[in-house]
């Protein structure tokens, strides 16, 4: 037993009760991050307990990784140190929900899908339809900064998180923002926590703006011979007065991924046949409204698709849309299960550069003999799955070459790219967080304020913060 675990063993049960301290290695394996197991996992039941645990960890110089449903522990660099897994799933209460005001305060460990169920009872929702939807927690989703197909219309968490309560790396319970939809009182520190991967502190509860549930929604899918035509359709929609809820471009191989067994397990029902094909690029878009609005979208989309010589055009209704939508939402887990060595890149470019970057992606992957699939959001974020058939050194070299070519190409196009998911043993050779940024010194200042002892998920984030 390490010195750390002896110290921990004596104090943590005092804070949370021994029933909520896990020392059994067969249990701790579930908290592994890049092959590193913590000495202990602890399950606090209140925000005060979270603060006490982190305060204790800071005093003993123990490294802490906060976890929710543990669906995204693979994201980022391997931790430099990892002593305590702080399992937040017992903090799972809705603290306040005012449906008439469309505001909500919920604890970080609350299941996201169950929360959406609560909101659904009031015909409301949060646009956080994110990967691992059925399992993920609110806190994990916010900390990992994952996005949703709905960002096309609703933006990302930074646009509808109104405030937050968190515990800093010194074990101080603090808050910023508020519960009202418009607020400029004090610094927006909660924005820093979104997507910080637990490196600044532990999110304890989140205040959200909720949204009225969309009325009857439908989807439109057009397939094209070339990527250029699909991208051109994206541009035409963006230049129209239509305001769809979602818009993605899918590369041909996505059709294979979406018909896989994993997709069948995760997706809501079977994928409607013939909507997308492994031979074509697709543009998909969801929209909602009354019958007149739906008819207008369908007519405009059909006209645009025809003008661009679409191979097929399909309207998805309330029965056929969910299977397609849930697969787009779960693109990352579906892709991860498709190969033992799937590596996911997230590439951001200005929308006008999408053609160029997709061409570069294709060139880089194919010149390195890698299978690949891409889901590109209309706002210019591309999720690229590199799909080596084996997990060995040769494949590792190919992935390293491909990703570095794409990183350089994205930078040249004034964009950027990261590698959120990759096999642990390859991470040392990959630029997981992309190329060094010129505002890195400012990020270090932020890190030192929140986590002066460097105990929160040390090393996992950008620049090994």
């Amino acid at each position, binding site marked *: 037993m390490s010195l750390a675990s002896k110290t921990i063993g004596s104090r943590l049960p005092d804070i949370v009760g021994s029933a909520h301290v896990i020392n059994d290695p067969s249990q701790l394996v579930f908290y592994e991050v890049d092959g590193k197991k913590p000495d202990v996992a602890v399950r606090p039941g209140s925000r005060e307990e979270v603060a006490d645990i982190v305060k204790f960890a800071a005093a003993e110089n123990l490294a802490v990784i906060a976890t929710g449903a543990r669906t995204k522990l693979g994201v980022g660099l391997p931790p430099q140190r990892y002593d305590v897994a702080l399992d937040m799933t017992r903090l799972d209460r809705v603290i306040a929900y005012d449906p008439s005001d469309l505001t909500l305060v919920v604890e970080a460990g609350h299941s996201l899908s169950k929360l959406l169920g609560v909101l659904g009872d009031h015909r409301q929702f949060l646009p956080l339809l994110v990967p691992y939807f059925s399992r993920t927690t609110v806190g994990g989703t916010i900390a990992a900064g994952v996005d949703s197909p709905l960002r096309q219309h609703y933006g990302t968490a930074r646009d509808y998180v109104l405030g937050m309560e968190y515990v800093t790396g010194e074990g101080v319970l603090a808050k910023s923002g508020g519960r009202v939809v418009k607020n400029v*009182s004090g610094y927006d520190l909660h924005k820093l926590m979104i997507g910080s991967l637990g490196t600044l502190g532990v999110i304890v509860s989140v205040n959200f703006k909720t949204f009225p549930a969309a009325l009857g929604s439908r989807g439109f899918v057009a397939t094209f011979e070339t990527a250029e035509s699909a991208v051109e359709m994206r541009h035409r929609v963006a230049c129209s*007065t239509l305001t769809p809820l979602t818009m993605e471009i899918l590369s041909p191989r996505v059709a294979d991924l979406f018909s896989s067994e994993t997709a069948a397990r995760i997706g809501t029902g079977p994928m409607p046949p013939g909507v997308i094909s492994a031979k074509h690029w697709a543009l998909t878009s969801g929209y909602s409204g009354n019958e007149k609005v739906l008819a207008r979208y369908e007519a405009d989309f059909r006209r645009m698709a025809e003008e661009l010589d679409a191979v097929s055009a399909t309207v998805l209704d309330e029965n056929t849309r969910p299977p397609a939508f849930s697969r787009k939402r779960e693109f990352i887990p579906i892709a991860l299960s498709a190969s033992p060595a799937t590596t996911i890149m997230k590439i951001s470019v200005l929308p006008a550069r999408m053609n160029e970057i997709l061409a570069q992606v294709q060139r880089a992957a194919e010149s390195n003999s890698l299978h690949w699939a891409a889901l590109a959001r209309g706002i210019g974020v591309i999720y690229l799955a590199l799909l080596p058939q084996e997990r060995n050194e040769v494949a590792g070299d190919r992935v390293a070459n491909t990703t570095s070519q794409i990183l350089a190409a994205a930078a040249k196009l004034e964009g950027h790219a990261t590698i959120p998911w990759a096999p642990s043993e390859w991470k040392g050779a990959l630029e997981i967080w992309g190329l060094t940024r010129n505002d890195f010194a400012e990020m270090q200042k932020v890190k030192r304020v929140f986590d002066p002892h460097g105990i929160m998920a040390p090393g996992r984030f950008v620049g090994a913060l």
Partner: protein
Amino acid sequence: MDTRLLNDLKKLLGADMVLHRPEELLLYEYDGSVETARPSCVVFPQDKAHVVGIVELSNRYKVPIVGRGAGTGLSGGALARHGGIVVGFSRMNRILEVDAENQRAVVQPGVVNAELSAVAAPLGLYYAPDPSSQKACTIGGNVSENSGGPHTLVYGVTTNHVLSLEVVLPTGELVRLGSEAVDSPGYDLPGLFVGSEGTLALVTEITVRLMRLPEMTKTLLAIFDTLDDTTETVAAITSSGITPAACEMLDGWTLRAVEAYVHAGFPLDSAAVLLIDIDGIREAAESQAEEVAEVCRQHRAREVRVARDARERDLLWKGRKNAFGAVGRFSTTYYVQDGVIPRTKLPQTLRRITEISEKYGFQIGNIFHAGDGNLHPLILFDARDEKQLRGAVAAADEIIEFCVEMGGAITGEHGVGMEKDRLMPLIFNEADLEVMRRIHDAFNPTGLLNPEKILPLKKGCGEIYSRPFPAAGTASA
């Protein structure tokens, strides 16, 4: 002030870009708030190198420095609370790029808000945040204050539209925060700096998102006989599932003041009106406008008028946007408050404001962003009477305290500045404020950049708020 500093500034910028004579400084004692503070000098950089140079001089001479756009702010953010150099950005007013393909624009901080939308309009685009002062206020000022406006209800405030920033840090370093493409890896620094009220950096360049102009906008004027019916309608619209582009409320006193000035056709005998915009594609806007009108009628609206054309719509909005000017005809001084409450608490909050009005004996007009729960009570008083000034501040404080009691916040869009730093403990405890102080000190360690704004002085450190009452501005300011 130090003549060597003055000479160095003149050498850097040219003599005509440095104001220092008392009569030249007079205008810069004010912003749109009721506070005043006189700077030692006002300088006008013309490019980012100038801004870097000014910050370096401020550090060398240990003189405070405060950024200023158009000076329309309502919380003293652009005032030199401790004297020093005011950096006016009016000469850095170029729109550097309007990129229609990517729906964004790159602007210098001194660009006037409405000008950007005017330039983007021929391309079918506009810049969504629209403070009522948009014909004068600058995007740089908007970024500092995270400004809102009537049409931020559905489209969000400034922070939701800023993609990246170029700033000069208090150390004199020029840094780009965020990136041109979305989801810049790392901490959300633009999210921290937007709304930091000029206390963390001076902004030299801003990349903003532009929105597509809607195909159709329907403007409704719903007229009510009681305040309660009006406020209950707002809550009903909010929970109906339709989010209007704007939902503004004017109470009877205010709309009579406005009507006398603008002649927009507001009914003189009503208790209050709601001014509602609904936009989108034709099919959506038409049906949603009808649904909203129905909600108004269900809540006893006496009449729901729909603007027939752009001229009628513009006239109604002109009334709303010029309201503060109209009120100036009735009182030498007014104090605009800026509290926020949950939308469901509007009825009791408006009733409380009426009670406070009676208790202190001041006319209080209400014209505000009802859809966001963002109140703007206008307290009319005579600033020449010291007793009235104290009473107006006490009445304002009582309103804000009630907002906080209702689960709200002390400012929705005007900022904390030097007006409300003393009120921050109403919503934040010492631990919350300490994290904010540390962030402040990490970026602004000498405290020379916009000193003593936002954050209250620590308890027990011997100093108390040195200006318990705002000095008077005039209504025409």
